[in-house]
């Protein structure tokens, strides 16, 4: 029997503390003692109240942020610097405004010196339904189209780990469901490890194999883990009305609700 494959992405006792630059005495621990393992091909969502350090977690997985303590492992190796096996889809606009849609999708391939960057990028644009829009600049595309271009840009590099930070939170409900289904289809063909951050519990359940609930900050850490045993392939709109979905939703919400209230109370106090 082959040796057991190491997890695609593993957090081992990871904490992250931010220190205020102006006032070194003022520190904020965003996440504390996070242990999390992501198997290759697994789709895991992280939900939690606003400001609980979900993005911090993702930035550490990407190597954009160094953990204050603990280690991040990528396929068994400790991560140092940028995680080059991961693709990152950001919450905010991340396309380079001075490049066309095609230029943006090509960017990563170009940086890595792929010989057929243009042909690959064109294929990816067609796959996300933007075949006819390659020569448009980001400001000439609608919000949904920009997200598609971002998705193509990230996936064109064929990363083994895909990190997504509330990628669809800025989209309207219909566009969002279309995009969610598209992502699920693309994921089903490639079976990459996905770490998906969202504040939307419905989205998390509909898409994932596993849902992780993070406690309210500061020092947030996982407080609940739920396996989502809904059948695949799923349609994100239809799956929401199945009894099992509602059952899971209720169970997870019971854990999440207290944290949301806690996070809300803290925000009120801070302001």
């Amino acid at each position, binding site marked *: 029997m082959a040796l057991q494959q190491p997890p695609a992405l593993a957090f081992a006792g990871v904490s992250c503390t931010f220190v205020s630059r102006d006032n070194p005495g003022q520190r904020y621990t965003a996440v504390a003692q996070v242990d999390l393992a992501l198997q290759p091909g697994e789709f895991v969502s992280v939900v939690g109240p606003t400001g609980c350090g979900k993005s911090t977690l993702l930035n550490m997985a*990407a190597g*954009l942020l160094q953990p204050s303590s603990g280690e991040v492992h990528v396929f068994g190796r400790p991560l140092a610097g*940028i*995680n*080059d096996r*991961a*693709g*990152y889809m*950001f919450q*905010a*606009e*991340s*396309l*380079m*405004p*001075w*490049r*066309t849609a095609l230029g943006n999708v090509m*960017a*990563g391939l170009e*940086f*890595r010196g792929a010989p057929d960057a243009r042909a690959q990028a064109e294929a990816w644009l067609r796959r996300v339904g933007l075949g006819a829009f390659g020569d*448009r*600049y*980001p*400001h*000439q*595309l*609608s919000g949904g*189209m920009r997200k598609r271009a971002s998705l193509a*840009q990230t996936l064109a*590099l064929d990363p083994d780990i895909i990190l997504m930070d509330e990628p669809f939170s800025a989209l309207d409900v219909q566009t969002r469901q279309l995009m969610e289904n598209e992502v699920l289809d693309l994921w089903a063909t490639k079976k990459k490890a996905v770490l998906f951050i969202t504040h939307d519990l419905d989205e998390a359940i509909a898409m994932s194999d596993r849902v992780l609930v993070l406690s309210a900050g500061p020092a947030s850490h996982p407080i609940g883990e739920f396996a989502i045993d809904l059948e695949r392939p799923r349609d994100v709109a239809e799956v929401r009305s199945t009894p099992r979905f509602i059952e899971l939703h209720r169970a997870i919400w019971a854990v999440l609700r207290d944290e949301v209230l806690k996070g809300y109370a803290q925000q009120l106090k801070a302001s």
Partner: protein
Amino acid sequence: MRHLRVYQLALLLALIAFWHVMTAPGLLPPFMFDNDRQAAFFFGQPLQVAGRIWTWFVVDADIYRHLAVTLVETVLAFAAGSVLGLACGLWLALAPLASAVLEPYIKALNSMPRIILAPIFAVWFGLGIGSKVALGVTLVFFIVFFNVYQGVKEVSPVVLANARMLGASRRQLLRHVYLPSATSWVFSSLHTSVGLAFVGAVVGEYLGSSQGVGYLILQAEGSFDINTVMAGIVVLTAFALLLDAAVGRIEKRLMKWQPRAGESEKL
């Protein structure tokens, strides 16, 4: 405003007519000056000015040489100032220590009235093109420098992080993220910097030279030939407008990736 151009033209004609009526000897009895030739002496006369321009461009056709000199000075000053400003702006924006050390000096250089350097440049570079270009460069440099500095500082952190995740090396970040972002700021200041390059050239010529439009004006002023001074000013103004229009065209072509106010979103 359908008749905007008509109104604009009418205003210009009215101003010229006013100028003519107030200065033509013998047309109105003198009420400001002792005799009826003094107004023309101090303010010039539009018809004489037009005649002078006509002579320059058509009859003698001797202004082209001077215009060419002024244009070459402007372009050289603009190009050198932009390249220097771009290089220094990028360097200082990406090297926090250097920028912290140099900050007071840059502030001092920027607030200094740099036109006053013209005599020094005349000593250093002589009365030829060199001293005019040097003056223009000092004017253009700071505009471009501050814009590039700002441009690099304002690169969206998300776009930057995204480029890094896509595997961009430091060099590629400079080439594909910082530089395009900085150039967009350079272009937004292009009108100002071309204008200042022009100012540098003309002022430099005016302070000492043997050719150029500024030189023509200096010569005419020496012999109290107000009509020629006015003609020189008119030519310079028209020339500056042409330069500005050319810059506008280039900007439009190169900056098509930037959203423009009022442009509807194309799907």
